[in-house]
């Protein structure tokens, strides 16, 4: 890429940009395209979209603001960024809602055409923020995006609406210029996306180019920035990936690598619906999908498929998980494999449907009637959703157990550059099915569905259609081995213990826990799920300053990794940051009887690494 550098260029290690505007302003698209340009500039990055729950909130209002944050750098990037360097605000509401996220001295790039009396009223600004001193301490760049876009599009004789919809391209072009990102890939992307509408391609690329050129010529912007390629990314081919997308790819990997067909059944629910959208396009991988009539039907269809020898998978969010619980208990009792993906969102009840939270851990672990343990896993980054989906399916079919995989809204919608795995490195699945009778009754070979494997304690999975293995299972307690209905008191006691022991034995599958930092020290941070980036950024930062802190991040929550007690012995204090009111902390206290200190944030937003740093500092200095 050739940069016609005419203005001074300042080099930066990392930058956080927040694109914010009305939900109709195309901020998600702008953000995604900027992300692509950034990925192609070989920076490490993390993104976080933040959109309103309403599909089309009234224009110009604060609750209609849609935002997209990207953090990129030449060093390792763990989070979408704590404080924003540049806020692009397309209207007063976007400025009002997001100003507090901008660091002192940060830059505000605002659409000056959108600050009329009516716009200010809609955002409930009683005074013009440009005039009342509230923006002092920020560098304000006012650009008449609307006017400039209209000018650029004058030759086309377009209607106002179409031109308005293109002004985000002006902002994008300008931002690409400001951060020395290449413009060509975006032009290519637009050309691909609207291949059938040449005029749309032309007007978008024209405005994009005008935005870029504006940077060159305007006197309002004196410097541009350069963020050098990251040297820390491992070699290989990368793509950008969202958590939900990664789950769909994980299922494709299961269908491809495992000796197993997959059926995905789901009921639309935010923020999990995207999984269904993606998986329904994977029919040529042999994955069937059912959009069920409700959450219970979805898990029922998945269990029905598993009974039929096709791995049943269902995806949902917290309220849906609650509805599925009785059926998950049936899968516990009948010991059928089942994978339930819970993309957690703010709760309880409808809660904050588009915001993130980690408050379903206890529900996943304990939310069923009776003694009904299941395997619980949690993905820690968008890309990790791929591996954990694969692992969930592998464990479910090997141990004949439901597995709940927890992700969250932040992982589902956030994106990161992802090193594309070599498919050969995925642990293949053995064919899990039995084909021969396993018992003799009156000299006749027969099949007993509850005779267990001595290593895993899993019962055999017999596919209907296999002669000689006809058997009946169900939700009533079954006699050990033979599998007939049994109300025998001792048998029930024994079976409850066996099922628990079986889930516990999944510990055999858990790799050694990675420790970030030294294996001993003053404080250990114990995290799980989507908070990984914030924790690792905080801990790395404090270690550089000489603090004796380390971190572990749990992906296996039930059972917990077998090496944890040993790891805990190396530390004096334990901090458990969670986006909930203290859930993992309870599980850990229960199992290890140590003084785990909770640190919670329940705002529908991910942790900032500075928040975790603050808490660590408070603990180690006191």
């Amino acid at each position, binding site marked *: 890429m050739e940069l016609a550098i005419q203005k001074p260029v300042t080099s930066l290690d990392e930058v956080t940009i927040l694109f914010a505007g009305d939900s109709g302003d195309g901020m998600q698209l702008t953000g995604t395209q900027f992300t692509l340009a950034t990925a*192609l500039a070989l920076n490490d990055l993390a993104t976080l979209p933040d959109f309103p729950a309403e599909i089309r909130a009234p224009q110009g209002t604060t609750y209609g603001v849609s935002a997209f944050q990207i953090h990129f750098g030449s060093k390792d990037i763990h989070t979408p960024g704590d404080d924003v360097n540049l806020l692009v605000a397309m209207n007063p509401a976007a400025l009002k809602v997001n100003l507090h996220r901008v660091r002192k001295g940060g830059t505000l790039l605002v659409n000056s055409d959108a600050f009329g009396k009516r716009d200010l009223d809609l955002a409930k600004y009683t005074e013009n923020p440009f005039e009342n001193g509230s923006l002092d301490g920020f560098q304000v760049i006012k650009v008449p995006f609307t006017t400039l876009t209209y000018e650029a599009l004058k030759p086309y004789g377009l209607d106002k609406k179409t031109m308005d919809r293109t002004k985000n391209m002006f902002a994008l072009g300008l931002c690409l210029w400001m951060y020395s990102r290449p413009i060509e890939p975006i032009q290519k992307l637009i050309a691909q996306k609207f291949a059938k509408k040449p005029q749309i391609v032309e007007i978008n690329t024209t405005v994009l180019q005008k935005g870029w050129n504006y940077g060159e010529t305007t006197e309002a912007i004196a410097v541009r920035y350069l963020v050098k390629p990251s040297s820390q990314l491992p070699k290989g081919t990368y793509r950008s990936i969202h958590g939900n997308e990664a789950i769909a790819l994980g299922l494709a990997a299961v269908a491809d690598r495992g000796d197993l067909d997959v059926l995905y059944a789901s009921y639309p629910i935010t923020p999990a619906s995207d999984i269904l959208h993606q998986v329904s396009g994977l029919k040529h991988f042999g994955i069937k999908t059912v959009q069920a009539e409700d959450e219970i039907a979805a898990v029922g*269809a998945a269990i029905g498929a598993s009974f*039929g020898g096709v791995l049943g998978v269902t995806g949902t969010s917290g309220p849906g998980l609650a509805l599925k619980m009785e059926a998950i208990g*049936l899968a516990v009792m009948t010991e059928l494999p089942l994978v339930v993906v819970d993309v957690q969102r703010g709760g309880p009840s409808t809660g904050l449907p588009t915001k993130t939270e980690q408050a379903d851990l206890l529900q996943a672990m304990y939310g069923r009637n009776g003694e009904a343990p299941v395997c619980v896993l949690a993905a820690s980054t968008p890309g990790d959703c791929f591996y954990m989906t694969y692992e969930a399916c592998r464990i479910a079919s090997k141990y004949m157990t439901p597995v709940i995989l927890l992700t969250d809204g932040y992982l589902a919608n956030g994106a990161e550059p992802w090193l594309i795995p070599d498919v050969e490195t995925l642990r293949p699945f053995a064919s899990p099915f039995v084909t021969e009778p396993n018992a003799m009754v009156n000299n006749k070979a027969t099949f007993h569905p509850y005779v267990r494997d001595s290593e895993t304690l899993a019962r055999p999975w017999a596919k*209907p259609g296999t002669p*000689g*293995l006809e058997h009946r299972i169900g939700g009533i307690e079954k006699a050990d081995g033979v599998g007939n209905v049994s109300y025998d008191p001792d048998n029930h006691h024994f079976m409850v213990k066996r099922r628990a022991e079986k889930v516990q034995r999944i510990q055999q599958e858990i790799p050694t826990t990675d420790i970030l930092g030294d294996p001993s020290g003053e404080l250990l941070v114990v995290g799980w799920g989507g908070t990984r980036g914030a924790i690792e950024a905080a801990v790395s930062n404090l270690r550089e300053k000489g603090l004796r802190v380390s971190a572990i991040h749990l992906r296996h929550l039930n059972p917990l990794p077998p090496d944890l007690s040993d790891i805990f012995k190396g530390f004096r204090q334990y901090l458990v940051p969670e986006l909930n009111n203290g859930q993992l902390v309870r599980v850990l206290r229960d199992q290890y009887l140590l003084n785990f200190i909770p640190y919670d944030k329940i705002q529908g937003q991910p942790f900032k690494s500075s928040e975790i740093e603050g808490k660590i500092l408070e603990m180690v200095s006191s």
Partner: protein
Amino acid sequence: MQENGKMPTLSEKPPVGRIFGGDGENGEAKLTASSFKTDQDIRWCPGCGDYSILAQTQRIMPDLGIPREKTVFLSGIGCSSRFPYYMNTYGFHSIHGRAPAFATGLKTARPELDVWLITGDGDALSIGGNHLIHLLRRNLNIQVLLFNNQIYGLTKGQYSPTSEQGKVTKSTPYGSLDHPFNPSAVALGADGTFVARSLDRDPKHMQAMLKRAHAHAGTSLVEVYQNCNIFNDGAFFEFTESASKPFRSLFVEHGKPLLFENGKKGIRLEGLKPVVVSLEEDGFSVDDCIVYDETSRELATIITRMFDATMPRPFGVFYVENRPTYDQQVAEQMEEVLQKRGKGSLASLLNSGDTWEVQ
């Protein structure tokens, strides 16, 4: 009147994947009714109508030509739902009301299996009402036997969604207030493609209905009036006992006039209203009576709605429609996509979209 064994073959189309295995591919002797019995003690109350339904099912199974291992009985919760434990096939006793959901997953995943769903009035129409209507509209190729005893048996005698209004039960000491469902009408309303009604005390009729249900490609709903002799004894005796049966029961058959009371009475349409006419006294003849057409949704609607004491209660196959099944369509769509896109390559899927190299 009722002439069993000569059922018309309008909708008969071999179900997907049917394999004749009558002489047992796994070295079994020729299948008989006893081949389908299990060694489990049957735990229904002595005298319960469920025994007859089990016996008729076991009796017809050998005639269907489906090997035991390709057959799955699936149920929800309730007295009727114990049924799978007594069938020597694959079986799954699930949770209350959700059997249609499990069946949907099973049949979609494995369309070649022969799936039977056993349910009751509470299971199918109360807790599982939503799943039942969606099963019917999707039209999976399975058989649904709905044991209607108009009571909750397993929970010891509360009124059910099919109990008559005013019913005095443990939970309604002053009489129930709820208007009851007419299951066959519900099935028609949900666009079911095969709707029939039979009686526990008419083995031959039930066998014929079960065979017809099995032959139909689509969701076949057979409502069976079943006596719960413990909590609702005699609920259907007016239709099943010989003293009243001829007067109170109307057996409909495709292509035949609607007659009852040993041919002395018939059903005639006055506009859209069915009326009872006497062929002996009113000067009407057989030609004035409705000739039943099971492919007519309109007639089916009129007949299933004959539900009060002024009209005889109809039994038989009310409605048959040939509509593609969900499982078949899923299989076809999978095949279509496979043809169009070729077998998916995992490596190229993972590498799709914009990628970049880090050296």
